[in-house]
């Protein structure tokens, strides 16, 4: 026994010494982060571009922790193992859940804040920063998020970066595309639709409108419709979200949308074309209404220019035919309109934030350290 003990002691490695360390700081890594309700995207000046679902899970108990071999799981991996996890989707309508009413739900507020913080840190980790580089990050958040929420985001990022700033998400999209004048930006996320009027200066509160008729709203609408129309079918909101992301469209359908849902355990086909079209179409009227409000309160001389320079971005803009549908509705309600969809809706916010980070003068970063 004593011999075995001695062997075990000899074999015991230094379990604390498993991380590396670096010396002097060299190089500057800029990060642009789009912290979204549904997914978060990151673009970095080392060429890394990644996105993952904004969810995090913590093993429920010691057994699941040992099985999963991780303390935290993110994105698709967390979704896949969610039954063994305390699962968090900490952002709702573009802000950290309960960050504005922490006093009434202190435990929930704390848990969601931790989850959001872990997601931000995971996004930064995925950018593969070198420890000898300065890391400067710009994080996009919804146009009208509260000061508490902005503070929470900064607090979450600070331990992993040298300096951090936040900016309005739709502004980041516009800045990234160099469309700073007489432009209306629509950023459709899962939690919010952010509309922002660009007129050569940093947009203020009157230039921005945030709607909650975004991706999650469409998912719920489609879920409710299918509950009514697909008798006996079993599905979850998560399954509906995947269906929408795959087949979402407005206008004319190229092909019927046929999906399989289990009915009493047996996979059964359902044609859900009309439900998908109606649900996705529901986003259009509020957007055009908000566009109208932003146009109407603008200098009349430039209203027409504004209506003919509408930029559609964000993950939600990937719904097929959405730009054309908004344009049609604009013609009907506002007399005219021209809508362009950005090339890379998922990365438009992160790339814009990266560009802001790159352009920000050194002394500003220094002062925010």
């Amino acid at each position, binding site marked *: 026994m004593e011999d*075995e*003990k001695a*062997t*075990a002691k000899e*074999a*015991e*490695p230094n*379990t*604390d010494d*498993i*991380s*590396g360390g*670096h010396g002097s700081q*060299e*190089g*500057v*890594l*800029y990060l642009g982060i789009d912290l979204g309700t549904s997914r978060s995207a990151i673009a*970095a*000046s*080392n*060429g*890394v571009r990644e996105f993952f679902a904004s969810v995090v899970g913590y093993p429920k108990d010691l057994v699941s922790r*040992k099985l999963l*071999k*991780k*303390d935290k799981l993110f994105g698709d991996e967390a979704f896949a193992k969610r039954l063994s996890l305390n699962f968090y989707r900490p952002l709702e309508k573009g802000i950290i859940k309960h960050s504005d009413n922490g006093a009434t739900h202190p435990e929930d507020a704390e848990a969601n804040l931790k989850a959001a913080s872990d997601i931000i840190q995971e996004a930064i980790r995925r950018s*593969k*920063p*070198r*420890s*000898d*580089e*300065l890391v*400067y990050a710009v994080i996009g958040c919804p146009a009208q998020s509260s*000061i508490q929420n*902005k*503070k929470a985001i*900064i*607090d979450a990022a600070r331990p992993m970066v040298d300096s951090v*700033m*936040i*900016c309005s998400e739709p502004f980041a999209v516009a*800045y990234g595309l*160099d469309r*700073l004048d007489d432009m209306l930006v629509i950023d459709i996320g899962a939690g919010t639709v952010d509309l922002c009027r660009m007129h*050569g*200066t*940093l947009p203020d509160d009157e230039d921005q409108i945030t709607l909650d008729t975004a991706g999650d709203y469409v998912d719920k609408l489609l879920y409710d419709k299918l509950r009514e129309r697909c008798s006996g079918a079993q599905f979850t909101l998560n399954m509906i979200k995947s269906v929408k992301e795959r087949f979402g469209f407005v206008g004319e359908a190229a092909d019927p949308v046929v999906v399989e849902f289990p009915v009493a355990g047996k996979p059964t086909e359902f044609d859900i074309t009309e439900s998908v079209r109606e649900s996705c179409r529901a986003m259009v009227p509020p957007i055009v209404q908000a566009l109208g409000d932003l146009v109407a309160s603008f200098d009349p001389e430039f209203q027409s220019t504004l209506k003919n320079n509408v930029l559609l971005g964000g993950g939600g803009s990937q719904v097929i035919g959405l730009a054309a549908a908004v344009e049609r509705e604009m013609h009907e309600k506002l007399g005219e309109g021209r809508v362009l969809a950005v090339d890379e809706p998922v990365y438009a916010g992160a790339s814009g934030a990266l560009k*802001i980070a*790159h*352009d*920000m*003068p*050194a002394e*500003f*970063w220094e*002062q*925010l350290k």
Partner: protein
Amino acid sequence: MLVRPRRDVLESRKSSMNSIAEKIYRLIRERSLGTDLTSLKQRGVKRVSVFKSNQLGSLVALAVEQVLREYGVKLSQGDLDNLSEEGRRAFISLLKERDSYKELCENFEKQQEKLEMHRDVLKGQIEREDTMLETERGFWEEMPVGTGSEAYRVRLEEVLDRNLESRIEMLGASPDARLVKFLEEMVEGLHRELDTLFSAAVDEMRSEYAAEGEKRIETLERRVQKMRESLDRAEDALMRAQAAGPTEDGIASIYKTVQGLTPDDEAFSQKKGMLEEIFQLNKNIKDQIG
């Protein structure tokens, strides 16, 4: 007619070249393929073409020369030599970096193997200690304390009884009934006394044994507990190591210094104003956070 100063042209070219460099960097990153000999063998690949470092160096030098020519940048032979030398040094430094990363990966694997071995040793020890503990518990629970003494007591009682019988026989055919009763009562008293004495002795023995057993079991339990804690620590360390992967250096940024807007940028003053405002908003938040 406005004529752009030569410096602007050069700056603009420099910026274009930076953007080209960025593109080349991204392309290389995207198209680089890492593999190992085992997977190549599995795919039936027996030969692969490999660039030597001097060939790569020549290719990069050629590409740079072509780009410089394309952008009409004329450099003296000295500048070209300097550029080539700088490129060569950067390339060698990258190679060194790759070697050090490789070494880091190997160390990491060794560390991981060590941790796994440590964990397995601990698991084996815990299993053995658990078995010992069970055996020990069983032994102390079923220990036949006093069984031997009980037999001895029975024998003594038999001797007493036999003694009494022989004494009564010695008293003759019609012994005095009072004497017989006296003898019988005396033997009964002796029986009771013996019972009491033996029970007390057995109780004392039992408690001594129990204390010894408890002590041994406690020691074993503590040892097992310590081993379990050690196992947990080893598994935690292994988990952390697996999650962290080799302590990689990350991917270097394309920027060595802080950038920032330059007067040559398009819409410089407009963007400058916007960036100042963003900074100010963030400064206010920072002040509020304290």
